[in-house]
């Protein structure tokens, strides 16, 4: 009798642990569906670098890349001289709520590159500035990246967080 009880007890223990690991998360998680609403208005971005942007053939990187909602909006393979403004018109996929623009610029590889690079990002809605950030890189870093977040509200008013 005891071995059977022992076996049953062990099986119950193993089954309980298995069930807990398998179903606990499912019980705890609450699912809700949030529909993403496209924000109205004309959104654009301006990017200015204090360094020459150059594509990297060695690392397969474009001179400058702009992403919104994890989608590549611009991947420029031509050089962009310093202090030249890159204007991205009619940003697609701006949604009501928080939006994030990520910019990645590759510094020209000439020299030992001991200077810091600076990247300025401005976001406009219907021509009016709504968000602005400046990013500095560590000296010598060949990639300068920055992310700017802006919030688009349902009536298409936009605020920077």
């Amino acid at each position, binding site marked *: 009798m005891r071995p059977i009880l022992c076996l049953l007890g*062990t099986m119950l223990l193993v089954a309980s642990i298995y069930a807990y690991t398998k179903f606990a998360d499912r019980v705890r998680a609450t699912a809700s569906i949030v529909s993403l609403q496209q924000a109205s208005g004309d959104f654009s971005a301006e990017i200015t670098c204090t360094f020459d942007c150059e594509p990297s053939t060695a690392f*397969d990187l474009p001179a400058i890349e702009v992403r919104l909602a994890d989608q590549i909006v611009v991947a420029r393979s031509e050089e962009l001289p310093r202090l030249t403004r890159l204007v991205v018109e009619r940003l697609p996929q701006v949604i009501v709520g928080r939006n994030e623009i990520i910019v990645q610029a590759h510094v020209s590889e000439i020299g030992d*590159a001991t200077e810091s690079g600076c990247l300025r990002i401005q976001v406009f809605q219907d021509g009016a500035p709504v968000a602005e950030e400046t990013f500095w890189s560590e000296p*010598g870093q060949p990639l300068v990246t920055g992310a700017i977040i802006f919030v688009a509200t349902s009536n298409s008013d936009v605020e920077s967080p």
Partner: protein
Amino acid sequence: MARFFRASILVLLGICFCGTAWAQKAERPLLVCSTTQVADFARQLVGDDWEVRSVLGSGQDPHTYEVNTEDAALVNRATLCAENGWNLEGGNWMKQIAESANKPLVTCVTGVKPNMLDHHGKSIQDPHAWFDPANAWQYVKNLRDALAKIDPKNRDAYFSRAEAYQFQLVALDGWIRRQVGLIPAERRVLVTHHDAFGYFCQRYRFQAHSPQGWTTGELTDVSLEQRQAVVERIRALGVKAIFIETTLNRELLQQIANDAAVQIGGELYSDAMGAPGTAGESYIGMMRENVVTIIAALK
């Protein structure tokens, strides 16, 4: 009571058996690499999805390595094999064992622009291409593509991990440039045991000198003339320090240092990475450690 213990032991054994069966079911594919560097690149791409093994361990020399039956047995179990190529593996030993086991093989230097070296009047490709982080990215791409081909359902994972590692390599390159900028141009002379650092020197604008040729397989061939030529070069260039390599005997370099009256600047990782737990246990760690050693000695 005794029956109770016996029953408990039986149940525990049963659980252990089931656990082993589950573990066997979840056995991962095996990727066998020739060198520690190639294995490190592979690990960055496969995460925990594959088991990655390196034929060579830390501090082992690929030029002179002789394969044994354990290596052949390991390759026999492999799903995929990877080598550096360009005869880094002396006599192409990795290619030979992969071919004899009929296993797919990735040659990591494919697509790298080679530095050509003179070897007994014959022009050959320098196989130490990983010392340029841009070439390391080419290694990673070749491994990524081979993994995606052999395991297409995890293609996105391999590409995502490769992209994440790409940024680490770019950051490493930038960091090395910044560090190297601390050494005046006239002091950028790297004297090592053998010609392993050609790609590093080319990218970061060093002059490279060594008494040995591109391979360590002919150590006895270092003539007095070759040694003397390096000593004179060190004196002429006013070199502050020379460097030994972790995979090689330090005697020759010590003699050259004594003859030229310069100090040994430290040990550099060359053909193999460091042991687990050391700064050189990964590719990026190895490169950083080498640069720190070089900067400290030549600045």
